């Protein structure tokens, strides 16, 4: 691990399970993710990667186990409370505010962390600092030429970039990204990875990714999830050399 484990892990998952009806989808997953770590989760389709994200971020309740964010238990909390404690996520299927402008999408993503809460008395057009921050993000994501367009009219790659921007806007310390480069061309993927590297600097990043090049480029630690269980977790070299991983997953993808 490149980052020394100093004290409590940023994210700690202990023996979580999840069943939908009779079928067990997550069958006892434990993981410790250190602060500042870039952590990739890989695994075949249907392994339960997205489900894991859904459990961590509070979208679904877990069936058993415990989840801690910076040492505080979060597994019984609703998504918005978990988010306020410093965890933010993106979705495998792009999730933005389709009918609102690109600028408005980003400004909304900033609101809570800037203390506006449910205010119905502060006129947004007078919030200089907030608006400047949203404009800055817009530039940073290279979306300033699209400022006033409804977000639903952006190209696919632009929508993905916008969602990444919205995910990091609130200043969360732990970022979960679910296949941020899926469906992108090579140049788009390179651009997206640059962006992700830039905007998640100094944060803990957990990313589900299918593109092995991206994974081995970026990750400090790789976890391999197969059929709801972790079959290997460690630095890229060890995972790559792991025979179980070779057999179950990687062998088919990288020779």
């Amino acid at each position, binding site marked *: 691990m490149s980052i020394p484990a100093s004290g409590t892990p940023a994210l700690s998952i202990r023996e979580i399970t999840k069943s939908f009806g009779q079928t067990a989808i997550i069958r006892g997953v434990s993981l410790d993710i250190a602060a500042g770590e870039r952590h990739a989760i890989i695994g075949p389709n249907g392994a339960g990667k997205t489900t894991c994200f859904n459990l961590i971020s509070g979208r679904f309740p877990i069936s058993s186990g415990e989840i801690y964010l910076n040492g505080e238990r979060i597994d019984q909390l609703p998504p918005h409370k978990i988010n306020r404690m410093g965890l933010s996520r993106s979705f495998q299927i792009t999730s933005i*505010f389709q*009918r609102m402008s690109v600028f*408005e999408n980003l400004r909304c993503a900033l*609101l809570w962390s800037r203390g506006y809460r*449910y205010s*119905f008395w*502060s006129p*947004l*057009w007078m919030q200089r600092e907030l608006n400047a921050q949203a404009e800055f993000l817009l530039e940073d994501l290279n979306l300033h*030429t699209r400022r006033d367009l409804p977000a639903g009219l952006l190209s696919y790659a632009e929508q993905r970039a916008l969602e990444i921007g919205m995910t990091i806007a609130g200043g969360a310390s732990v970022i979960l990204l679910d296949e941020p480069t899926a469906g992108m061309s090579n140049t788009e993927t390179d651009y997206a990875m640059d962006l992700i590297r830039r905007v998640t600097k100094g944060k803990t990043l957990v990313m589900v990714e299918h593109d092995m090049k991206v994974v081995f480029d970026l990750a400090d630690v790789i976890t391999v999830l197969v059929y709801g269980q972790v079959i290997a977790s460690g630095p890229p070299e060890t995972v790559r050399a792991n025979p179980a991983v070779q057999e179950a997953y990687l062998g088919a993808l990288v020779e």
Partner: protein
Amino acid sequence: MNGAFGKSWLWIAAVAFALLLPWCFYDFHTARHSGFMLSMLSQMGMMIILALSYNMLLGQAGLFSLCHATFFGIGGYATVHFLNAAGDGDLPLPMEIIPLLGGFSGLGLAIIFGYMATKQRATAFAMITLGIGELMATAALMFHHFFGGEGGVSTNRMIDHSLFGLTYASGVQVYYLILAWTLIATLAMFFLTKTPLGRMANATRDNFERAQFMGYDPRVVRFLQFSLSGLFAGIGGALYAITYEIVTFDALAGPLSANALLMAYIGGTTVFGGPVLGAVLITLLQSGVSLMSNSWLVYVGVLFISMVIFAPSGIAGLIMGHKPILRAGKLGQLVVPYIRVLVPGLLLVLGFVGLVELTSFLTIGAAQGKTLVLGGNKIDVHATMPWLVSAIALFGGGAWLRIEARHFRRVWDGLMADLKSADGKAERVLA
């Protein structure tokens, strides 16, 4: 910030128009305002507030409420009691402030009911609000002390306490009071759309999960938006009570909730001012057409259905659709195509109205002993000719309209494509 009040000239013009309007119908011989006009204009004011506050839910928060009249009605009933108390000298408040009390009554009830309804969203929310509406309608008939049963409760607005020394004996004074409050409420609702809550209401409408993962509890957003919309509906109800000096069951029952929905939808839910257009149009239909025809509700219904099918973004949405063409200075190219759809369109409408009126005079009209008069000539509803002419106009106009509509579509799509490619060029030049 630029754009916050971008269309302010339009609003200022509308207000100036509303200020002058009563004087356009002033009879200098009798030195009196037209009572009919004043009462219609006053009604427009409260309907504008009702429709706009309904759109805080439907258009801005994506909440399909079926009990909006509940909060309008409670504002009305409460105001009757406030006025009575003020008249008795128990409530030392000037008339100009009383609508705010009606608003607070709406707010109070919306907080209670909103707490239940906004636990849910989408269909479940709609069902709960339907239940609330029914509950309140039943309560209105049960609790005589407050609601006065079938007959309603009445009051006298001349409480002899005004900030400006007005008596409110005349309709025109009441009209200006209503105009002032309509303006205040409209500005306040517009302001709300520019606040964090207003924006997050849009956000939870588009995608409530995303809002959750940005720290917002969509339930709280819904609850606050619902409560505030109840506040404004209550103000509308208070104006109702002041105008008519009586509030009955109609002010809170289902049909008025449906009306709020109709006005907001027909006017257009995607633009802030849309419901204003809807409220004006429906009130005109209600006061104007209802004098001429028994079947005005049929027309409103058909208008609503047509809007849902052909123009789901309402009148305002239709107008806004022309903005890019106007900006490109190409609106002129639409004049001829518009005339070409207008002619068969008119024919279709006339044919339809003809059939509806003939039917109505054959049934209800006959029972009331009325006869159908058109341009001074009596029309025999039992003869074949009028029926035949109407049917031909309806079906012929319809078939013709289909052809013209296709032509219109082609012209429109051509214009849009032109604009797009022009945009693309401009962008390439910039880049």
